[in-house]
């Protein structure tokens, strides 16, 4: 009797699970087609000399040749270096900015005003880099508002987008301008989950505002900062800067602004100067570095006593 009930239950469970798998099927199919097939193709292609007539699975096998030739390719090394510098700048400048914005937004007592400021500074996040590049090129262009103001003050005209000594700074600042509001949301959420009793106790003990920020707010968001740092470090080779740089850069700033993503794109689809196998090898290199870095940084963070990513 009991066994029969169990059997019915198991049958029901199997039927239930079968339907769940059916619902999941399109999602899994998508991941296989658009993520895992390209990964498999990328591994295959990175070990081959691509020929159009033979495709990604059957072109002549060349082993690690592409990875070796990367080490002596000046343009690749330059792009890797630029990618690293631009990413590091983001971690060093943009992350602290977002944390500061979150801390001081939280200090604003008037709730309506706080929300309004947050709404305003988050707005550019939702505008594409195509549009923003158009706006920034105009604002910082030769006849743009910035140079009009500089001329009014009797100062020399600037063109930060097309000059190699200012391009990276421009990339960092414009990305802060676009993303600081958005980035600060996660820290703001962490701050609001800190126990308000801690602040009251500190105030009773005579702690000043800055002391409260230093001794309560910052320790309170440590865990969130650690997670965001791990994620950012894992992305130093990709960092999603393609949209921004591709829409803002030009040949005069290649030497400081050409990143791995823009380099692969240009050489593969515009100049057509490199073998697709070589492009794929650079892509693999990027992903591998990302996995290694995220593993290492996660180890370090957990060793320091914080919760890691996994």
């Amino acid at each position, binding site marked *: 009797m009991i066994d029969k009930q169990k059997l019915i239950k198991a049958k029901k469970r199997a*039927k*239930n*699970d079968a*339907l*769940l798998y059916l*619902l*999941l099927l*399109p*999602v899994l199919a*998508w*991941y296989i087609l*658009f*993520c895992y*097939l*390209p*990964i*498999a*193709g*990328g591994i295959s*292609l990175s070990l081959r000399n691509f020929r159009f007539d033979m495709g990604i699975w059957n072109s002549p096998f060349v082993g690690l040749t592409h990875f070796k030739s990367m080490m002596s390719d000046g343009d690749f090394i330059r792009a890797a270096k630029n990618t690293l510098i631009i990413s590091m700048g983001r971690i060093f400048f943009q992350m602290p900015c977002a944390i500061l*914005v979150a801390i*001081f937004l939280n200090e*604003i007592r008037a709730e309506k005003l706080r*929300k309004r*400021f*947050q*709404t*305003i*500074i*988050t707005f550019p996040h*939702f505008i594409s880099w*195509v*549009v923003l590049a*158009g*706006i920034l090129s*105009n*604002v910082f262009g030769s*006849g743009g*508002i910035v140079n*009009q*103001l500089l001329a009014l003050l009797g100062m020399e005209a600037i063109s930060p987008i097309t000059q190699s000594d200012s391009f990276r700074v421009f990339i960092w600042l414009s990305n802060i*301008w676009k993303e600081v*509001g958005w980035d600060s*949301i*996660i820290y703001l*959420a962490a701050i*609001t989950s800190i126990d308000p009793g801690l602040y009251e106790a500190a105030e009773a003990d005579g702690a000043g*505002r800055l002391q409260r920020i230093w001794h309560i707010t910052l320790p309170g968001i440590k865990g969130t900062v650690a*997670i965001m740092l791990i994620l950012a470090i*894992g992305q130093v080779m990709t960092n999603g800067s393609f*949209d921004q740089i591709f829409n803002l850069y030009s040949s005069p700033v290649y030497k400081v602004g050409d990143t791995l*993503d823009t380099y*692969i794109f240009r050489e*593969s689809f515009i100049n057509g100067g490199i073998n697709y196998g070589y*492009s*794929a090898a650079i*892509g*693999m290199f990027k*992903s591998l570095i990302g996995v290694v870095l*995220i593993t290492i940084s996660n180890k370090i963070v957990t060793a320091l006593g914080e919760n890691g990513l996994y």
Partner: protein
Amino acid sequence: MKKKSLDMYQICIILIFGILAVLTLYPFYNVLILSVSNTVSVANHSIYLFPYTVDFTGYQTILQDHKFLSAFQVSLFVTIIGTAVNMFLSVTGAYVLSKRELIGRKVFLTMILFTMLFNGGLVPTYMIVKQLNLINRIWAMILPTAINTYYLIIMKNYFLQLPAGLMEAAKLDGANEAQILVKIAIPISKPFIATFALFYSVERWNEWYNALLYINVEKFAPLQIYLRDILIGLNSQLSAQAQQMLHSSQKVSTTVVQMATIVITAVPIICVYPFLQRYFVNGIMVGGLKE
């Protein structure tokens, strides 16, 4: 005494954020006032705060361009159909993955999370999309970005914390999982789901990367690509058209046309933004990547 210094502190912070707000919005405003100026007003005045003229020739030039109308339609299609595809896959995927007792759930989750770390790269992805016969098809702007893994995980975490009792009760009444999803899980999550539909639709409206890679035919160029062409000056027909108007009594400069296009491209986002911000301000986006 203490009260007074407190107010100073508040005033300082509010002042700093006020400046930040102006720095954030002014470039957009500058574009807006330039888009309603004309060659004469641009040449004679420095336009900082108020437009000297309100001249819609820039907008007229754009709206008369058949390429613009085509690009607008493409973007509209990609946004509507693309968001529908996004939401179908994300909602079903997130719901199933929120079922803790599902056998193989951990494997599926790991497989999905791994793609956030490791991807095939530009060229291999292009080759696969090509093999799937999507080049120069409108679906090339929809399918390769059909799921945003980050959103999927947040939605899964959301479904995880829905009250289980309601769904268990429905199951005892004989409802299957699909019915529970459609009749219970979705209706009680309406605002949350609407938020993600908005996030996805903003992404689809801003779509240009897939178009850059996979679309070489003009009839499928979305608005962002059209704008890019105008900004770089590739759209020769339009500049000719603007030039023609320049010689006629109507004065319009290419800058004005460019600025007008920027405004038109950004307006839909501005329209949905008030709805968007209502939810993300409440911290809904912070589901985090962890379980």
